[in-house]
């Protein structure tokens, strides 16, 4: 059993990460909650990153099967897979945890091939990690965690970058492991034995109808004024490439693009400076004076999208990854309210269904 008994955890910058949390976990849980509710903090506590790596002040304790949290016992899959890269090739990335545990290279490679086939990523083994799409990289990192033979695997938003088919396949494979998953896509909660709610309140936003005007671009994709187009497809299908291509084609128009890694977009000193007049509409007042790069991934993404709202046409790559379902509704509401034209590359089928048009790659 995993025992979490935390009175309070405060990050070194003074931000309270968790408060009064008492949990008993058995290894098949999904943790849900609003953005900033402490899901990632909980997973980092289980892995031992908090407080051993992060520092800060922890009042309380966590026991993993009677022992102190230790990265050798608990594998951790991060929210942004690009940040987990340690090796040049996929086969090396997969074997990394096994090599750390002293396994011989040939034996580790054999194990890696087996798991890669199971996850249907065998064709990626010889590829460079920096050439993979975010979704493919997410599959590699999950495979690497499975390979580590840890007592527990904790996964932070593992399905955010995965197609529904891949997500369901991963859930099926993870059934044989002890896992704790933090996820915003609550549609997957039925597949887990227990749901831990760290504070999720569903909000309603008024439904606005879009007014679709004349064709403003006819290139890789035909786009009409005021239209919201969803681009869906399997991992590695080329959704991001399409958005980048569109951005190049539409240089004559007022276009803004938000890539999957929000950190690239944030160059200001304060969130207020980055976002400007959209601060209150994106509910960012509470963090207005914070440095954008000090925020959580979800918050950074929100700021990056708000920053891009000054443009007429928005190209958004996985805009809801790392953000709760309320933001999904809110984003559509704001796009329609401000009469924006948008192309959204997403794996979130619920978001896609609410768009004016869906393009499948």
């Amino acid at each position, binding site marked *: 059993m995993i025992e979490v008994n935390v009175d309070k955890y405060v990050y070194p910058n003074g931000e309270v990460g968790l408060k009064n949390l008492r949990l008993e976990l058995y290894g098949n849980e999904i943790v849900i909650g609003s953005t900033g509710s402490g899901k990632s903090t909980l997973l980092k506590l289980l892995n031992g990153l908090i407080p051993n790596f992060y520092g800060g002040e922890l009042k309380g304790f966590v026991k993993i099967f009677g022992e102190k949290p230790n*990265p050798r016992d608990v594998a951790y899959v991060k929210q942004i897979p690009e940040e987990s890269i340690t090796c040049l090739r996929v086969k090396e990335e997969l074997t990394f945890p096994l090599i750390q545990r002293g396994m011989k290279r040939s034996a580790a490679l054999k194990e890696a091939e087996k798991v890669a086939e199971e996850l249907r990523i065998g064709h990626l083994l010889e590829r*460079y990690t920096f050439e993979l799409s975010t979704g493919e990289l997410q599959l590699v990192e999950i495979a690497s965690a499975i390979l580590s033979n840890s007592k527990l695997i904790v996964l932070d938003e593992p399905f955010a970058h995965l197609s529904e088919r891949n997500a369901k396949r991963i859930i099926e494979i993870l059934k044989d492991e002890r896992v704790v998953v933090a996820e915003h896509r609550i549609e997957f909660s039925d597949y887990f034995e227990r749901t831990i709610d760290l504070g999720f309140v569903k909000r309603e936003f008024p439904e606005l109808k879009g007014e679709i005007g004349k064709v403003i671009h006819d290139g890789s994709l035909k786009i009409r004024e005021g239209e919201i187009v969803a681009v869906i497809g399997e991992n590695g299908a080329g959704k991001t490439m399409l958005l980048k291509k569109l951005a190049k084609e539409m240089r004559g128009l007022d276009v803004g693009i938000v890539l999957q890694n929000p950190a690239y977009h944030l160059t200001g000193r304060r969130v207020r400076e980055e976002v400007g007049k959209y601060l209150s509409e994106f509910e960012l007042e509470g963090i207005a004076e914070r440095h954008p790069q000090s925020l959580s991934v979800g918050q950074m993404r929100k700021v990056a999208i708000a920053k891009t709202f000054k443009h007429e046409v928005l190209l958004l790559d996985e805009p809801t990854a790392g953000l709760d379902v309320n933001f999904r509704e809110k984003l559509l509401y704001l796009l329609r309210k401000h009469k924006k034209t948008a192309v959204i590359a997403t794996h979130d089928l619920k978001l896609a269904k609410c768009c004016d048009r869906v393009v499948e790659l």
Partner: protein
Amino acid sequence: MIVENLKEGFKEGNLEGRCVLLSSLFLSSSIYISGFNVLISLCSIAISAAFSKGKVLRFIFGFLPVIVLLFVSSLISGFNVLIAFIGILCSGALITSSKYSEIVGALIYFRFPEKFVSYVGISLALLPTVINDLENVKFLYGRSVKEYYSILKAFVAAVIIRSLSLGETLYSKGFTEKIYYEVRKPNAIDLALLSLSSLLFLSTVLQPLLFQSI
């Protein structure tokens, strides 16, 4: 052009790790020992370019701003310095003509401590990822000189975040300073590279001695 050349340049080649590492050392040492001799520098460039099938020359384009800067300074200090610098760059870049896991294997073979080698290997593996960051940032902020400050700011921020997250990743993956490496037998082409580099090195070292004896 710079980013594309760096990206291509950092992709692995097929030469054997130990031969490449030794050759790289011999070629760059020859340039130093010869006192930036133009002929030795040109020989080093030719050997590196020929065996890497022109791959090392991509680095010259990748480091174009530095080359331009050196060109300006060479107007005062002499063109041999510029050619020597290009020679050293090509010799160093020769290591990208092998698999990085073989370079790591070569270091371990030559009895470097695994603790040290593991960090070298991770740094090498992350270089293309950093180039990717640069490519994305450049894509976002355009190519104009006006945007240079934004590109620099976003790139530096991305690199700082990457290095911080690398520390976090290594901890969370239970890094014990071990690394994946490969060692294989050299082919004829690897031995030819090593022989030519050794010959150049020996001729550079022995040249002053021969002149003295004459």
